[in-house]
């Protein structure tokens, strides 16, 4: 009977194995550099990192955790999309089914609590970056990207809040979107909107102001549900993914993990 190590050597010599892994198990310095360079996921990192940059006490790992929770949200979100229909008729009952009929029925819990957690980790990431002065040159632009990503995280959570279509959902979105009514010039109850008129006909009214654009209607109804669904599942994640790529790219290009340069 062949020994296990011999068998393993056999496997490693096969064409399949060698096409998957371009190098041996990383045991020496060269291998450890190679594994980071040849793997698309690991190559987000540089081969070598300053020691200060890997101390948890310094970075709190908050940016990484935020990215990881985003991926958790994508995966659980895709699973939820298999069962959820964004219509007044089905939305609420589909949510009930998610908990009661669907195997592994805690996907909605992971998705919801993950969303809350992501908001907290984004804020703490911002706190860490501020407290270590990591927004200072040459990282000014990346800080701005980060602020937009923070805003997108809030918008992701806000749009998702409507989807269960229960009392909590529509009233939270009603309260939130009522603000848009008061947008200066663009909301029909905002300062300045009264001046935008031709003769006696007002140009900004409840049927075309900023809130109407957000809700696709005069109140939170079918149009708002579809609009928030598309924003939540496609539009905002699309923008956020692009900006995340820019964010990570710029971390590397602007001198790597922050430290006293």
């Amino acid at each position, binding site marked *: 009977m062949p020994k296990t190590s011999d068998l393993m050597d056999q496997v490693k010599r096969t064409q399949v194995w060698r096409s998957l892994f371009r190098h041996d198990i990383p045991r020496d310095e060269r291998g450890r550099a190679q594994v980071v360079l040849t793997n698309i996921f690991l190559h987000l990192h540089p081969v070598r990192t300053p020691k200060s940059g890997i101390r948890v006490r310094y970075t709190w790992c908050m940016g990484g955790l935020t990215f990881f929770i985003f991926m958790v949200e994508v995966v659980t979100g895709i699973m939820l999309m298999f069962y959820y229909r964004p219509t007044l008729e089905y939305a609420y009952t589909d949510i009930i089914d998610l908990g009661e009929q669907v195997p592994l029925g805690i996907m909605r819990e992971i998705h919801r609590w993950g969303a809350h957690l992501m908001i907290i980790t984004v804020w703490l990431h911002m706190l860490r970056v501020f407290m270590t002065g990591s927004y200072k040159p040459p990282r000014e632009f990346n800080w701005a990207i980060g602020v937009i990503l923070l805003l997108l995280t809030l918008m992701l959570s806000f749009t998702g809040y409507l989807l269960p279509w229960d*009392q909590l959902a529509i009233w939270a979105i009603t309260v939130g979107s009522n603000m848009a009514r008061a947008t200066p010039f663009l909301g029909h109850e905002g300062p300045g909107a009264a001046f935008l008129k031709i003769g006696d006909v007002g140009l900004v009214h409840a049927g075309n102001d900023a809130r109407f654009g957000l809700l696709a209607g005069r109140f939170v109804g079918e149009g708002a549900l579809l609009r928030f669904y598309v924003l939540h599942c496609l539009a905002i994640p699309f923008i956020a993914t692009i900006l995340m790529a820019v964010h990570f790219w710029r971390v590397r290009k602007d001198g790597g993990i922050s430290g006293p340069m």
Partner: protein
Amino acid sequence: MEAFKSLINWLSAPEKLIGLSTVFVLVGLRTRQLWTNLAGLIGLVAFVVFFLFSFQDPNFRIIVTKPDNVPIVLLFLFVGFFMWLSMKQAWENDERIAAGGEPIEKSEYKEKVLTWPHLVYIELICLVLMTVGLLLWSILIQAPLEEPANPAKTPNPSKAPWYFLGLQEMLVYYDPWIAGVVLPTLVIVGLMAIPYIDRNTKGAGYYTFKERPFAITVFMFGFVVLWVALIVIGTFLRGPNWNFFGPYEYWDGHKLEALVNVNLSEFIYVKWMGTGLPQFWLVREVWGLILVALYFVLPPPILARTLFKDFYKQLGIERYSILVMFFLCMVALPVKMMLRWFFNLKYIVAIPEYFLNV
């Protein structure tokens, strides 16, 4: 016991809570003794004891165990912990610098380690720990689902999602166009402007407080007081009709609060001059408009000669003007709060004809 509870109820009224947290930021950041292991431990124990004690109270339990409010308890704990962690390291570095050394990050920065395994390993542990926490949370607490949506039945209070409750709490003091549109926009733009306004080259890449006290104090004031504390108030302490309720108080929907707030124009024309409000809005509100204009015109040159003298010299007129404008907009919130608490002032400028209330 009851006396303690009523003391806490009394202390958690917005003016006291905001006042106390402001003092905590302004004085606390400068107090070395707060950012030690001992102080951190005392703070943690105090929080746990307070929480366990309060949990016996039915009213406190109802509001804290609402599923969507759990994140705020976490937020409170995390913000406290990470504020302590960063300030502790900042003070340690400052002491090292004062003794002629360099911040610990500086000595460690020169040393490079291999990403695989050192960094990848730490990332993996963080991910696993967080996943365990998230799974436990998801198994233990069910996601909330209330009755089906009913546009005809407005709940009281109607609240936005918890992370926007700071903004909703601002609605007490400012109209929606400021609290819901202008201020959030300024927060976003102001945050993005930070690196272009803060030209202090020190403190890049390591924790420090003494090398950038102004930046850290202002940021902490904005984050801890104007954002987190307002969220805590908006979530835990605002009940039906957005009335204030202490943490141990029953949310009585019939609680009556006298509406005693008065506009500046009513102060001037009714109370002081006794002539009654003028018909034309511009005459009526001209004093308020002048006051608001003065608020934005007078302080910049005065501050440039006094408190912000060094900034003015260092930044130049353009950057300085932007800094002061953002600063004044930020301070406008506590200013209006104080006017409300101490003078019952409702609006400085009240032009409901054009939805322009300040």
